[in-house]
């Protein structure tokens, strides 16, 4: 049985308070980090093999190492708590139940990159989460874990909560920066990357909540401990959110690389109501779906990439045999269309067109050649936009057609659903 790391405190009473956190050994990682050099912290995180838990899986230590060492330049850390990839509900649990774990991870990251100011970008709907973070920042400041001369050191850090206001695109890191700066959240062209020109034009690191929450544990237990959990190339503990047609939906913390079948059947209790499994989205709706024959795939970045899909946020959405894949694709793409920021034509217009075609197929008015038309539109969107929103929509649709083209064709030919 895997001993939870990130979720170990969530069931203790008042787990969100600093007293509960200190009792569980909280802020020991920060204490230890402040006795290390910034470079050795970055090296430790590199050695741990920690890769970004927001979806892209970029090596965290490497990301930190891109930040200028020039002490005269202001730097920023932004925590991406815009959790919006449908199927995902992991960061909210950390924020609401154990916010100090995140704050400690952020303080260590800021010390390592030389940032004196940090922002937590939390989606606007997480009202309780934002309040918990504000309270936790106050508590941490009162205890000397944030603010001036943290824990008696020469390191000082201000931390702020910035609330979003309902826009999926803000999970994209450069759109997130635009949003903090008080603008519409349109992604920026890269390069320059945020590590060079980020928030307010300064070098900036953007990390996901879960990524940052891993940091105190890595400092406390050492890089080798973390690297030994799960597969060598994408190691560590991982939060998997299981939703949809399972008996026990919920958040499960397991070693990276745990097979999908084990998560669905052993932890989430299998398919509800004794029905048959049909498909699973392994990493939030942008991740192409998998079917029965793929269920032994280990849930890690590389194994899922090898299957043509992705780990994404580790959000596992399970569908039983009552599900119409066409209807699911329509709902998913209405979402992408709604959330397209409108900056890039292929995404803005392409998704509008995709949804129209999907809607007529689902509504029994599909025309011959519509499935090929969808795939052609995918080509016109993929790789032609500033940010990955359009790509995610395309990957999801290609995945659905790849697995269940017969259902799309059936809808077109018989003007109704086969399920």
């Amino acid at each position, binding site marked *: 049985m895997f001993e939870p790391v990130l979720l170990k405190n969530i069931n203790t009473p008042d787990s969100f308070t600093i007293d509960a956190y200190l009792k569980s050994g909280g802020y020991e990682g920060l204490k230890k980090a402040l006795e290390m050099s910034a470079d050795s912290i970055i090296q430790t995180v590199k050695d741990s093999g920690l890769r970004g838990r927001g979806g892209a899986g970029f090596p965290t230590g490497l990301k930190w190492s891109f930040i200028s060492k020039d002490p005269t330049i202001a730097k920023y850390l932004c925590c991406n708590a815009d959790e919006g990839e*449908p199927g995902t509900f992991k960061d909210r649990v950390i924020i609401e139940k154990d916010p100090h774990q995140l704050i400690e991870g952020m303080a260590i990251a800021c010390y390592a990159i030389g940032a004196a100011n940090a922002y937590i970008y939390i989606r606007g709907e997480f009202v309780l989460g934002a309040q918990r973070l504000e309270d936790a920042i106050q508590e941490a400041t009162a205890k000397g874990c944030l603010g001036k001369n943290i824990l008696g050191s020469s390191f000082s850090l201000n931390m702020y909560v910035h609330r979003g*206001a309902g*826009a999926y695109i803000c999970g994209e890191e450069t759109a997130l920066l635009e949003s903090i*700066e008080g603008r519409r959240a349109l992604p920026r062209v890269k390069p320059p990357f945020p590590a060079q020109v980020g928030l*307010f034009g300064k070098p900036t690191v953007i990390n996901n909540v879960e990524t940052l929450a891993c940091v105190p544990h890595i400092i406390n237990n050492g890089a080798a401990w973390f690297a030994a959990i799960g597969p060598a190339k994408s190691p560590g503990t991982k939060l998997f*959110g299981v939703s949809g047609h399972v008996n026990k939906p919920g958040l499960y913390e397991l070693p990276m690389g745990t097979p999908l079948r084990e998560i669905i059947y052993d932890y989430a209790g299998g398919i509800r109501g004794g029905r048959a499994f049909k498909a699973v989205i392994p990493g939030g709706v942008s991740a192409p779906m998998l079917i029965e024959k793929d269920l032994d795939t280990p849930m890690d970045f590389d194994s899922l990439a090898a299957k043509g899909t992705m780990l994404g946020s580790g959000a596992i959405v399970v569908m039983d045999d009552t599900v119409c894949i066409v209807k699911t694709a329509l709902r998913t793409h209405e979402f992408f269309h709604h959330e397209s920021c409108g900056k890039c034509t292929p995404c803005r217009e392409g998704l509008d067109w995709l949804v129209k075609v999907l809607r007529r197929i689902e509504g029994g008015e599909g025309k011959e050649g519509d499935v090929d038309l969808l795939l052609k539109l995918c080509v016109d969107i993929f790789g032609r936009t500033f940010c990955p929103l359009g790509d995610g929509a395309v990957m999801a649709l290609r995945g659905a057609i790849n697995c269940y083209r017969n259902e799309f064709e059936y809808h077109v030919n018989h003007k109704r659903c086969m399920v």
Partner: protein
Amino acid sequence: MLSENAVKEINELTSKYANRRSAVMPALTVVQKELGYITEEGMRDVARILGIKPVLVFEVATFYTMYNKKPVGKYHIQVCTNIACSLLGAEHLMDFLSRKLGVKVKETTSDKKFTLSAVECLGSCGTAPMMQINDNYYENLTDAKVEEILNNLR
């Protein structure tokens, strides 16, 4: 006009950022809290307080879905209709609420008490189906639970 307190709050919010313009989002939240929705006058006030052109406030207010550009009821019911919730009956939940309240999606009851909205994923997929009413999440919903929630708000 915004109240003195709201103006003070917005001015204080600017200290969180490297420039005053960046406080536009929290400032709009203050406006919405005070007026119930974002009025043109409210946006102009924000622009004046922050020292920026009104268009820079308008464009932000219209980009983000949580800023209500029209008045909403005392209780704003937002039903998640995204994948996990739709797999577990979001459509039924919406129909049920619509029947109970006697309004369609995007409408407000005649007593101005409830507005019914469909929204995208609220990050509560393990407890689907769910809805948000004002600041609170209501999860693992059943007809009976929804009935009880509505009765408590009526």
